[in-house]
């Protein structure tokens, strides 16, 4: 692909996570010859986030294997990477971005890939030493150190991150107690069967849960945390508290520039804001999702960030298309592997393929007769087939889904064998 006559000459990308990095890589891969400036607020080169809560936290891999690409990549690809910088203001009329370093960058096209930040609950004691998070590298480095020394751990929030962390902590033999406001794990994203299975799997490894419970305060002595108090409950001893109650999109910069914000930066199906010179991608963007009936959707996923990036690059290079990619997600929690294809929110009926009691099953989630998505537990082949099936817009009935003699691979095949 060669850049079209209307391609911008300088693309500035705010945010050097998965979306920002993919944008850089795809621009050059697509033949973009102009200037690329990538602005990241962390000191390290762009790195992969998923392993932070898994192999990096457990010490299995180091920073070298986290990096998206070695330093030479940025030099060879003529990418100016501004590390440790944050944008403070967008001047849309002048097409300029001001950074906290004092520098001002002009742009022809600006991509907001600012991601999201930890949701911090307004709890007394939240600032105590020993209260940790798990989103970026610095937080993970600190957590890794604290985990090694911890005697009692409380996790607030039973989402992907909290559970992935708990699995790593249990593998080290550390006592873990998870406090969750809802009545089940991962309640926001998975069906009841999947929640139930994962809660049991974590319990079997020694994780304790308190559901329907709100952390009321975090207490400590000499500035260091020593317990978490649960509303209408007792105090749980803790010298390490991990707060994992979700994230907030980083949309303030867009908002102060007069762009629409509603649970993220509002973009159209091409991922453009109302300003044609500004796009938004990844965790910070709220887009009309074809796989959610066109409803405004904000997703926190590597797939979403990288596919968004490719869609924007195609537009910048003169091959505009709507964003239609199928969302998919994964989580590794100890020995358990969860893979989700599609968005299963709003389902009213499920069909189970495989054996839940063997920890080897997929749950096909339907709204009426319509297949919304598939949650696969320790069943990667189902997941791979499910993605192709959904991406092709094909349907199979709940009866077919539950019948293990039904050939899922053939139903999903997008090319002749």
């Amino acid at each position: 692909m060669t850049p079209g006559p209307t391609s911008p000459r300088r693309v500035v990308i705010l945010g050097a996570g998965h979306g920002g990095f993919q944008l850089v890589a795809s621009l050059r891969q697509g033949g973009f010859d102009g200037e690329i400036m990538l602005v990241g607020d962390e000191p390290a080169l762009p790195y992969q986030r998923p392993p932070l809560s898994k192999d990096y936290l457990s010490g299995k891999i180091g920073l070298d294997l986290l990096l998206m690409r070695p330093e030479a990549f940025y030099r060879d690809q003529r990418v100016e990477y501004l590390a440790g910088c944050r944008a403070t203001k967008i001047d849309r009329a002048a097409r300029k971005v001001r950074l906290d370093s004092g520098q001002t960058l002009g742009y022809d096209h600006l991509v907001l890939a600012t991601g999201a930040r930890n949701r911090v609950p307004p709890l007394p004691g939240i600032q105590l030493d020993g209260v940790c998070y798990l989103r970026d590298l610095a937080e993970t480095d600190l957590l890794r150190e604290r985990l090694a020394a911890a005697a009692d751990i409380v996790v607030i929030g039973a989402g992907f991150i909290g559970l992935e962390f708990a699995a790593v902590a249990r593998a080290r033999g550390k006592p873990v107690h998870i406090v969750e406001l809802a009545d089940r794990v991962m309640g926001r994203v998975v069906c009841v069967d999947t929640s139930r299975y994962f809660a049991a799997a974590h319990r079997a490894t020694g994780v304790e849960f308190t559901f329907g419970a709100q952390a009321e305060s975090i207490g400590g002595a000499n500035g260091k945390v020593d317990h978490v108090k649960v509303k209408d409950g007792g105090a749980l001893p803790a010298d390490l508290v991990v707060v994992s109650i979700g994230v907030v999109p980083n949309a303030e910069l867009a908002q102060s520039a007069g762009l629409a914000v509603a649970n993220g930066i509002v973009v159209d199906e091409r991922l453009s804001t109302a300003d044609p010179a500004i796009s938004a991608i990844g965790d910070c963007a709220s887009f009309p999702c074809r796989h959610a009936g066109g409803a405004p959707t904000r997703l926190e996923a590597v797939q979403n960030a990288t596919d968004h990036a490719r869609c924007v690059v195609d537009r910048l290079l003169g091959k505009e298309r709507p964003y239609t990619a199928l969302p998919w997600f994964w989580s590794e929690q100890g020995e358990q592997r969860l893979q989700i294809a599609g968005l299963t929110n709003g389902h009213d009926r499920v069909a189970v393929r495989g054996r839940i009691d063997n920890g080897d099953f997929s749950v096909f989630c339907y709204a009426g007769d319509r297949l919304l998505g598939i949650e696969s537990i320790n069943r990667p082949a189902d997941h791979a087939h499910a993605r192709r099936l959904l991406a092709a817009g094909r349907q199979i009935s709940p009866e077919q889904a539950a019948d293990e003699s039904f050939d899922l691979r053939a139903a999903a095949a997008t090319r002749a064998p």
Partner: protein
Amino acid sequence: MPRVTYIAHNGKETILDIAIGTSVMQAAVLNGVDGIVAECGGSCMCATCHVYVTEDQLSHCPEMELGEDAMLDGTASPRQPNSRLSCQLVVSAQMDGLVVRMPEMQTE
């Protein structure tokens, strides 16, 4: 260290000495070898580290698991009998001399 040769779609060759236990994908990314995308970071989730292994060396590679087999159904470039996901090719002593070819595309 076992030596692995990567041949890009355009014919460009890169030879790497890889520590045992590192995957063919990880070594490629660490050394900036073009043609391996590895979007999911090696979780066998994305099929963007697709390679063609020289046929008579397939038996030196780790056995293919069901998940990889299924992911390979969805590669951007055609699957061949010698297709593998390089994140699953963890280098061992008997893989010394391995030659892998990169497909034309890793993403649609």
